[in-house]
């Protein structure tokens, strides 16, 4: 049998993966959720037909969104994670003993349910005592939070669906208020390559740069995301992502990683010329 999953990255470009079988398919109040088994990428989580993660390349995303801020700010104890119902971000965070409390706000309970059942490698730390899962709208959860978190990680879906609210100025304003005076916000910032993605990336960078005194962008290569080329935003009230990197302290933790290194940490902030121009345009 010749069964293929395709995701359109633009109306004219698509990524196709041969599927062994479909393990899960349900439509929640918010979106359609599918889990597939594939030979090349292992299990795949798709929301409304967009790949959220594959077992094969999830480590790149999760390591880069977690270890970059953790290697910069040594006092991170309380973390807010938005989205990330698959548990991948939490899995990386719980490797740090200094983290005492993690709030995870996920809109869709069915995502967590599906991942617990079918992607246990990611969801395995969702039951850690430090993790507190809240189902609901993140904007609402944060509206009354002030000066509470050391780190906020925004692991959203793309900006054209139910996650649209997580790319807005009002949301970043709330994040700023919810962070302590030395807090850091890291968000997935989309891809700068295809036009529609690039426009959304610029818009959200503009909002972040207008909200936080320090706002930098870093990159990673993630094969199953659009153009295989992905960005993260590092926004902070105090710490600079390179100047305040304490590589020696992070090495001392002896965390084994497959993508992140403290050398790559610095390199990830060195961006191609076209991207520098796009960011400057909106700063």
């Amino acid at each position, binding site marked *: 049998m010749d069964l293929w999953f395709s995701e359109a990255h633009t109306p004219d470009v698509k990524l196709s993966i041969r599927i062994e079988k479909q393990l899960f398919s349900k439509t929640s109040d918010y979106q359609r959720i599918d889990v597939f088994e594939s030979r090349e990428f292992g299990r795949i989580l798709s929301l409304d037909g967009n790949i959220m993660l594959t077992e094969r390349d999830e480590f790149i995303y999760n390591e880069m969104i977690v270890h970059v801020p953790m290697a910069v700010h040594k006092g991170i104890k309380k973390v807010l994670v938005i989205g990330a119902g698959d548990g991948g971000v939490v899995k990386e965070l719980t490797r740090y003993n200094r983290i005492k409390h993690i709030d995870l706000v996920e809109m869709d309970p069915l995502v967590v349910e599906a991942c617990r059942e079918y992607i246990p490698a990611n969801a395995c730390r969702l039951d850690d005592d430090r993790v507190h899962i809240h189902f609901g*709208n993140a*904007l609402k959860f944060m*509206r*009354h939070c002030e000066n509470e978190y050391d780190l906020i990680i925004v692991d959203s879906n793309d900006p054209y669906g139910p996650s649209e*609210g997580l790319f*807005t*100025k*009002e949301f970043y*304003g*709330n994040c700023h208020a919810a962070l302590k005076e030395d807090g850091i916000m890291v968000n997935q910032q989309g891809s700068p390559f295809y036009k529609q993605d690039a426009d959304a990336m610029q818009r959200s960078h503009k909002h972040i740069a207008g909200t936080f005194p320090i706002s930098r962008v870093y990159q990673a290569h993630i094969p199953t995301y659009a153009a295989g080329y992905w960005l993260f935003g590092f926004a902070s009230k105090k710490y600079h992502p390179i100047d305040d990197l304490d590589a020696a302290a992070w090495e001392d933790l002896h965390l084994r990683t497959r993508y992140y290194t403290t050398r790559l940490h610095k390199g990830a902030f060195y961006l191609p010329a076209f991207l520098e121009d796009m960011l400057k345009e909106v700063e």
Partner: protein
Amino acid sequence: MRTTTLDQTRAPIYEALENFRKQRVVPFDVPGHKRGRGNPELTEFLGQQCVSVDVNSMKPLDNLCHPISVIKEAEQLAADAFGAAHAFLMVGGTTSAVQSMVLTACKRGDEIILPRNVHRSVINALVLCGAVPVYVNPEVDHRLGISLGMKLEQVERAIKEHPNAVAVLVNNPTYYGICSDLRGIVKLAHEHGMLCLADEAHGTHFYFGKDLPVSAMEAGADMASVSMHKSGGSLTQSSFLLAGPNIHEGYVRQIINLTQTTSGSYLLMSSLDISRRNLALRGEKIFEQVKEIAEYARNEINSIGGYYAFGPELINGDSIYDFDPIKLSVHTLDIGLAGIEVYDLLRDDYDIQIEFGDIGNILAYLSIGDRAQEVERLVTALADIRRRFKGDKNGLMSQEYIPPEVVKSPQEAFYSKKVSKPIMETEGMVCSEFVMCYPPGIPILAPGEKITADILRYIQYAKEKGCSMTGPEDPEIEYLNVLVES
């Protein structure tokens, strides 16, 4: 919900268009784009589906000027759904419905009793027909700075003082959702041989939702103008004019045909037909949901602090006889910003477009198409604006109702000999044109009214705060046309 007698699952105009499309008729008639072929850029933009039903009147599709088949059936279904004796499909906006309603009731020299906070289309109709307004000054809520409804005793006094008036016109509701005692006003008007007309530009949902203020037809009013395209979900510019049993259908049709296009758009008409069907079948549930969203939003906004999202708690049995719970109006002065400033911030900084902002309030329009996630964005943006800009309200003007001094009828003033003067030199003169903030389009000055220092101060302040002013010939509103002293 009202019980209907016709089969509300039907949509005759829509069905006729679907049949027509299947027949693949070769067009040697207008419109000249010929199903879009002659204008590929337009077709690309609007879509083939859309341009292929942009067609002209013809036998199988009836004629809006003289309906005898599918348009007539659609009007009968609409009348049935709204509980009216007759319904007319309108393609010139609710403005055209309001004008047809006033022109049906009044002729030159007739008096009509109305609140001053009417939409400009009402006074426009007076310019057209030469009727004379008798204004009832609405009560004002001084904290919020908004005009309220007409008190029953005020209407009664106006009727006693002007026993020859031919009609009473009522906003049901106002832009802010405030309703007068419509049943009481209808009773008073009818007892004195007057018609009762309702501007229901903001009240379509009253006909379909549960536990909402009374609709004009149910209250026994004689005519009502209903903006189907606002809370009802049809295309912009489509609207219904409703008439009760005492109104002569044929005469209304003649009045409508005085100013209505003879090329009524089938896009607009089919949107009315499909939207009426939707509301008749599902309106009760839809507006229950909208009401829940509005109540949720009011609670959330009120918990931010500083803002006041007002609601049915304002009801006082008279000047606020009832309140439309799906309106989401927010008083902003206590966070130190004028409503118009919050309106501009929401659009410029947060990509959120709301219906309007005036001196002290904003109004976010909620309808059939709203979802919880967008409401979260609005509430969160309001919280962020407060965090960024919170100040004290000193120096902010509260909106006050300025009672007009009517010197001449709108028609007389509009057509009189006039001269253009720098606006600040016009105090004490009689204005011959409209001045208003749009939206909401309620005139600050109407033709024939005296220009006072208060009014000039208000116009200057509204301009400074960034209100979009419209009406006068001079687009910058630096000059005003005033009557030449005779």
